[in-house]
């Protein structure tokens, strides 16, 4: 029998937990410090005796941070819905239908999901500019296809493959058309997989930076990552506000990871870990 882990293991693990959590706790501590305690003698003191929410108020009322949150939400949501719709058809075809050249198509999809997006940024920028789509929601939703579509096809294929083939056979025998089989038999069973993929697509679109930085430059259409990266003004870096802003965007993600950790991991590692 395997030995149970001793107390040293826990000491070590808790040490690692501290290392992982430390940057976040540091940010949290900085975000409630008054300006005067961020620098100078009290900069290294982890706590403050005069906690303040001024930085949070400032983030939401002095900066267009709410606008950025709204923009990110709209762009990531629409990207997720339309990508999943298009990708689920493609993934179904690759996973369940008989035709030649599947492996090649899957190879093309996987290689696309790993290529550097920077190799497409100039033409995308120029075309969007000529179409008048820079500084618009569509201007980011369209290019996000290059990131999210291959990613979701790849993950969905592994999920679709796990659904037993007998069900399709049974539906066929009952006289269902292929389209009916897809909508009424396969899709309901694939819901957990589709949901997982949707979470990953949403996170990818929410966090995307290069396209967002290049294409949507006006404050009205900036997304959260761009807003945070460009918080620093010309002469001063408002660290209190930046800390508050990072806490605001981190908390929902932490909650999401706590709830969906198993799904996210299974989605990310699917295809790369053979079960």
């Amino acid at each position: 029998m395997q030995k149970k882990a001793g107390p040293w293991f826990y000491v070590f693990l808790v040490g690692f937990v501290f290392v992982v959590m430390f940057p976040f706790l540091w940010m949290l501590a900085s975000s409630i410090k008054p300006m005067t305690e961020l620098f100078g003698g009290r900069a290294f003191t982890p706590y403050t005796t005069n906690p303040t929410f001024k930085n949070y108020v400032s983030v939401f009322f002095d900066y267009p941070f709410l606008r950025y949150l709204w923009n990110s939400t709209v762009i990531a949501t629409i990207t997720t819905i339309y990508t999943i719709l298009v990708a689920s058809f493609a993934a179904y075809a690759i996973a369940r239908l008989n035709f030649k050249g599947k492996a090649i198509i899957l190879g093309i999809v996987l290689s696309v999901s790993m290529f550097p997006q920077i190799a497409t940024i100039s033409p995308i920028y120029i075309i969007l500019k000529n179409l008048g789509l820079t500084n618009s929601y569509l201007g980011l939703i369209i290019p996000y296809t290059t990131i999210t579509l291959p990613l979701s096809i790849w993950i969905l294929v592994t999920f679709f493959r796990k659904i037993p083939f007998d069900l399709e056979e049974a539906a066929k025998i009952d006289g269902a058309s292929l389209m009916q089989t897809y909508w009424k038999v396969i899709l309901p069973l694939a819901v957990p997989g589709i949901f997982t993929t949707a979470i990953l697509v949403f996170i990818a679109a929410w966090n995307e930076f290069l396209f967002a930085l290049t294409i949507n430059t006006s404050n009205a259409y900036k997304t959260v990552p761009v807003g945070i990266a460009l918080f620093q003004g010309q002469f001063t870096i408002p660290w209190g506000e930046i800390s508050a802003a990072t806490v605001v965007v981190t908390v929902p993600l932490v909650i999401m990871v706590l709830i969906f950790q198993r799904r996210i991991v299974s989605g990310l590692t699917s295809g790369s870990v053979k079960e």
Partner: protein
Amino acid sequence: MDPVRSSVKETPSEIKMKTSKKKRVLTKDHMLAIGFLTPSLILIAVFVYGFIGWTGYVSVSNWNSLVPDFSFAGFENYVYLFQDFRFQADLRNTLFFTIMFILAVIVVGILLAIMLDQKIRQESLFRNIFFFPMALSFVVTGVVWQWLLNPSTGVNLFLSKIGLDSKWYTDTTIIPGVEWGKIEFGIPVALIAVVIAAVWQMTGFSVAMYLAGLRGIPEEVREAARMDGASEFQVYWKVILPLLRPITVSVVIIMAHISLKIFDLIYAMTGPGANYVTDVPGVYMYETTFRGNYYANGAAIAIIMLLSVAIFIVPYLISSRKGES
């Protein structure tokens, strides 16, 4: 066609019925497959392969101003880059960043995964905590670590209190700094800060991968090794680690492609740095294209990045295809 089926005696009409039925299903599958795949394939063909082709075309053109100029320049832009101080520094930085980043992610990932695999209490809580930086964007990671390593406010104050160097984060020293081309070759000290931030963010992924791999190794394998008199260390070093090799390959590929195309983290954390000690091709490409309007130079950088990623991905894809068939 199908040896098992053809060996069974069937009446000709039965055979005819079966084959015709099979054919009909196949064509229906084919048509549906085409219908299902077309939207995705068109999007990928235009937005990815088409635009990469465009970038490749621009990279051999003379377009280095605001006005598009598609006249053929040969490999002039590439030659220029490889003789350029900044690009040489970028290549050095990418090389050492990639090596340090991948090694650290693998070593820490294996160690933590082995520890989590010891039937510990609260395992899922630990896993969640190790995993959560993965969900953050590189921009947030960069900003957080910039603040954390800031020489005048962050943890480096602690270093200066005990009499150590607190300014390493903005140091331009390169170790060992051998002259090579136009640059000093070696590990830039400031780059280590970026590696730490990247490892902090990505280790959760390798922990998850290795944990899945460890769970896939049956307990009997370990038992057998112990029966043969192997120490606990030997069991892991000689038996478990070799069995985890496929996972290591996946982790290396995934981390390598992240590291070779890294942009957000550097942009948000350090920028190019003095003497370009923390610059990477991605940042150079962005600045030269969208700040300087050197479209052809930028395109050449993008193509070099693409090729460097392809060196990792293409063999991986070919070998995993072989594994499947």
